[in-house]
């Protein structure tokens, strides 16, 4: 199967998710007690940087099946926004506030954007221009 070169979107996405998960584990291991936020902020920043890099790298790909990418990614985004919202609700229910809540919320935003991007990319990279699909 001949494939044109594409940026390493999946690898970068997984690295970004790994950083977010590491930050989540770090915060969860301390909650509900006070958490020193430095390491979590550093992990979040690195993850967000990878997300930005991934978006930039993908946006430079020419002749990509963008229609398919967005049609898949937007529904996936809706699903992961609901999941992220439920996780956030649980944190609010547990009276998590302040800097910890901000870091957790931003981590959930990165998670809820990056996973749909990976799903959309994986589907769109194999999309043929002659194919029409009903989701």
């Amino acid at each position, binding site marked *: 199967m001949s494939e044109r070169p594409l940026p390493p979107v999946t690898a970068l996405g997984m690295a970004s998710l790994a950083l977010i998960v590491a930050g989540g584990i770090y915060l969860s291991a301390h909650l509900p007690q006070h958490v020193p936020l430095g390491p979590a902020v550093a992990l979040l920043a690195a993850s967000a940087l990878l997300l930005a890099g991934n978006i930039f790298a993908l946006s430079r790909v020419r002749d990509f099946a963008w229609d398919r990418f967005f049609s898949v990614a937007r529904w996936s985004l809706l699903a992961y926004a609901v*999941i992220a919202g439920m996780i956030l609700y649980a944190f609010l229910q547990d009276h998590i506030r302040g800097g910890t809540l901000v870091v957790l919320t931003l981590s959930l935003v990165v998670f809820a954007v990056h996973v749909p991007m990976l799903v959309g990319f994986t589907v769109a990279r194999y999309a043929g221009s002659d194919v029409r699909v009903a989701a």
Partner: protein
Amino acid sequence: MADTAISAPVVVPEAVPHGPPFERPDFDIVPRRGLVLVAIVAVALIAAIASNKLWPLTFFHVAGGAAWTIIDLFLGLVLGPIIGRMSIPARVEFTTRLMPKMVLIMPTVVTATLAAGWQLGLKTGNVLSSSPNHGWIVASYIVVGVMSILALGLLEPANIAVLFELKKPRPNPEVIERLMKRFIYCAGILGVMQIATLVIMTKLASS
């Protein structure tokens, strides 16, 4: 879980370049009727967390966790190798019937297990760093974290992409083969990691 919509079969004459034509059942990538059940589970989960009562939280954590573990173990260690040895037409038919259900089942059971589990851990005090079980709890975070990265970064995109490929008038068997390989390997690793989850959870439950 609601059935995948099966309508008139579609003939796929070129899915296997050198094989005989075979039929592929039509299907919905996301079974819409199943979304109603997912919504019911989500509402019940929110109610369980809001009530913060022991029984509903235990129910969601144990029922969701059992479903998650059993599905991963069975798919990764039993069904996965069997699917790998099936003929392509048989694999295609099996995939079109199984995968759409997995698109709804797995995120639902994982969300229910983790959300209820966190709340339960707070209620029982297991997640507190002063708890004697805290080390085991952190170990479970790490196992779940690794499983999440694999499931979200590799498994789910491959699952959805296979379904989109199968929806095409002329599915490319090489693409299906490549994505299914990714799916089967990931499912195998997740199955093995679920054994670690079983060790940790049974240790927590018995201490």
